[in-house]
């Protein structure tokens, strides 16, 4: 059977894998990118599409900022449009405790250039006259925004191909093994791919590969519950997230330039990992439809035309596994971004390329070291 070789083999063609392939090529390394389906078809393609920095754990902000710089040059770098719209991100509170949380975060994150502004309910309704009277307070990150997840990863993947990456779609991988100084990745049809370095960006399936190298991680899979409205005139600039006390009360939405409003919330469902399908629970849709008009009452006039879900990997501590393997030389990970990976995607690719090519990265990622799970086990 045919054997393909490169400097780096990447397993998993979502936004993490596609970005890594692109930036590795920019650094002159040869790359093989392997994807079971089509580039960007899984979590990268079905997520909400937020490109926010506000709200992320503080230690994640350097990576988020690095990624943002790349988002701003998306078309120039990747040659295609991802419909990036930076009209701000608005977090809204309905109780005094919510305001306290937002103030605390704004203070903790103030040195990262997000430009956050706390706003009273009155000020919010003056600037955004569609907000409900129940909104008590809010925090605006004026430079954040959103993009189109259906377009982004595929565009990066095509750019990686133009840069000379070898991309193999419709290639299901059955094993990743180290043989001597080389990784041997075997496809279901018998094709073999070899490289001295391997990067696992297999998302919700990444834990299977890490476990096979003796590095299991506490990851579960969840299906987000998304809905979208008919297209209506553009009115809602920022992505909006309502602070909620339970997952079922969560609601967040964004209006795309064409006018459709994407709405997420209502918790998650358990995906069917055997058939690789995730379903939307009608009850969760109804929950979200009930919650949305509490934030923007006029949404009650509109209809949703489609719902969808997907498969996302969530780590127990909500941080990805990113960085070098703790056990195997030449092995690297970037998976399990726990529903927050979309905005980080371009930055993750840039950082992993830097790490693999030079041995180090200027962006702090130690908090996502996969070794933390083994250390926690050892202490326990």
């Amino acid at each position: 059977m045919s054997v393909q070789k490169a400097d780096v083999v990447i397993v998993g063609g979502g936004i993490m894998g596609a970005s890594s392939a692109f930036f590795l090529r920019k650094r002159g390394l040869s790359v093989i990118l392997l994807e079971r389906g089509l580039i960007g078809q899984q979590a990268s393609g079905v997520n909400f599409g937020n490109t926010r920095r506000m709200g992320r754990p503080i230690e994640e902000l350097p990576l988020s900022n690095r990624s943002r710089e790349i988002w701003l040059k998306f078309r120039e770098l990747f040659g295609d449009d991802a419909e990036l719209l930076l009209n701000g991100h608005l977090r809204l509170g309905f109780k005094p405790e919510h305001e306290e949380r937002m103030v605390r975060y704004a203070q903790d994150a103030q040195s990262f250039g997000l430009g956050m502004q706390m706003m009273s309910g009155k000020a919010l309704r003056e600037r955004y006259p569609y907000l409900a009277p129940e909104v008590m307070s809010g925090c605006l990150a004026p430079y954040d925004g959103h993009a189109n997840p259906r377009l982004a990863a595929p565009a990066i993947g095509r750019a990686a191909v133009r840069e000379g990456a070898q991309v193999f779609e419709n290639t299901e991988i059955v094993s990743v093994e180290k043989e001597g100084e080389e990784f041997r990745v075997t496809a279901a049809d018998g094709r073999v791919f070899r490289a001295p370095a391997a990067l696992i960006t297999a998302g919700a399936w990444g834990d299977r590969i890490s476990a096979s190298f003796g590095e299991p991680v506490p990851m579960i899979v969840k299906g987000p519950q998304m809905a979208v409205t008919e297209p209506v005139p553009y009115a809602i600039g920022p992505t909006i997230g309502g602070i909620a006390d339970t997952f079922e009360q969560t609601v967040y939405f964004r209006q795309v330039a064409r006018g459709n409003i994407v709405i997420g919330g209502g918790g998650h469902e358990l995906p069917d990992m055997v058939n690789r399908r995730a379903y939307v629970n009608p009850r969760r849709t109804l929950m979200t439809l009930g919650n949305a008009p509490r934030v923007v009452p006029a949404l009650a006039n509109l209809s949703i035309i489609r719902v969808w879900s997907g498969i996302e990997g969530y780590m127990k501590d909500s941080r990805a596994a990113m960085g070098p393997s703790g056990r195997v030389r030449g092995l690297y990970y970037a998976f399990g971004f726990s529903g927050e990976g979309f905005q980080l995607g371009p930055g993750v690719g840039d950082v992993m390329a830097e790490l693999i090519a030079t041995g180090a990265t200027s962006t702090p990622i130690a908090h996502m070291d996969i070794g933390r799970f083994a250390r926690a086990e050892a202490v326990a």
Partner: protein
Amino acid sequence: MGQPRVIIVGAGPAGVRCAETLVAAGLRPTVVDENRRDGGQIYRRQPDNFTRPYAKLYGTEAAGAQALHESFDALCGKSGGKIDYLPETLAWNIADGELHVTHNQRTRSLPYDALVICSGATDRLMPVKGWHYAGTYSLGASQIALKSQACAIGRQIVFMGTGPLLYLVASQYVKAGARVAAVLDTSPFMRRVAALPKLLARPAVLRNGLALVMGLKRAGVPVLTGITPIEIKGSPETGVQGVVIRDNRGNERSFECDAVAMGYHLRPETQLADLARCAFRFDHETRQWLPETGEDGRTSVPGVYLAGDGMRVLGADGAEIGGRLAALAVLKDFKCPVSDDELFALRARQAGMERFRRGLVQAFPWPAQQAAQLPDEAIVCRCEAITAGELRRTVCDKGAQEANRAKALCRVGMGRCQGRYCGNAGAEVIAHAAGVPLEQVGRLRGQAPVKPLPIAVSEEK
């Protein structure tokens, strides 16, 4: 075994006869229908305050329409009735043995033991340049305007497409006093001749069809066959202004009009079957994906049955038989007594319908080749205004060779109608641009809600 809870979706010919058969066996099914009144599409009832008699409204189908309406009225009865009838109720989703419905901004979930989906069909459309201009309607729409609202869709109308409905509606318009500019059939006349053996399975229907064509010609309406649509001419200010075609000798012909009624036979509404996770198979003859059905409308999902045009387009008579067969299948599967004689008789009649159906497919084929000939500037997806050229670029430049991938990258099928009117043609364009067989392009993945769901719905406790 206790009485199964049966829900029937659709109060057209299939749903009505299904309900009637179940009631006769002692059950009390729930009948859910989106419309205000029963009858489905072909036997659509006019508003209460309209006065046209059945003969005027339904022509040769008057007896069938009246019989169906009277049967349903009997099921509803004056006090309580024999069924639970939920009109103006949209079935928008199915999950875990429950049908989710909405009525008047209130939503409920209805548990079932057996679900019979009689969702009917819509027109099947092949785009033509200019079909997005105001004044272009589906063929079914032009019939509904006349039948249900006593209106013509314009003052000078071109009927274009293929199938028996083309001639039926054009004739109805002439009889009602509307001005019909032309009847333009893409199927060559010889195909009808070749299909004659199959069409003879229903001689009365065939006779009626021939009479319609003669009637149109006697009325001075140009009737052309074997035509190729080139363009619907119009402007954003006026809408439709005319139609340009190539006739069967290759000459370009124009017809002035302010309305076009267009349709290429019908396509089943399969969204509920899809949400119920029924298996689909590719039907090579009609070049579309249909839910897989076994005997008598059973699907791959136990407890879910299909009948009528929503399963396979057999027309109203075929739908009535299919509805009865599905009811008998439900009864049998739930261990209720069933007359085998009745079963076999119905199956035999359906076999004749099926033969005729295949004759229609042969005589009036879906004009697949038009997709490849669409100019780049022709709109394929009306909802999102996506052109054939954009779709082709998505195939060639972005490697999208599959329906859902193309939809994700260029939005064909992402609009309000969720691919009802662009799905078939879109797949043909993709297949041709990618150089792959149509089956390989797959089909648009079904997603709830079946039709737009108002955000203002509240759950009924």
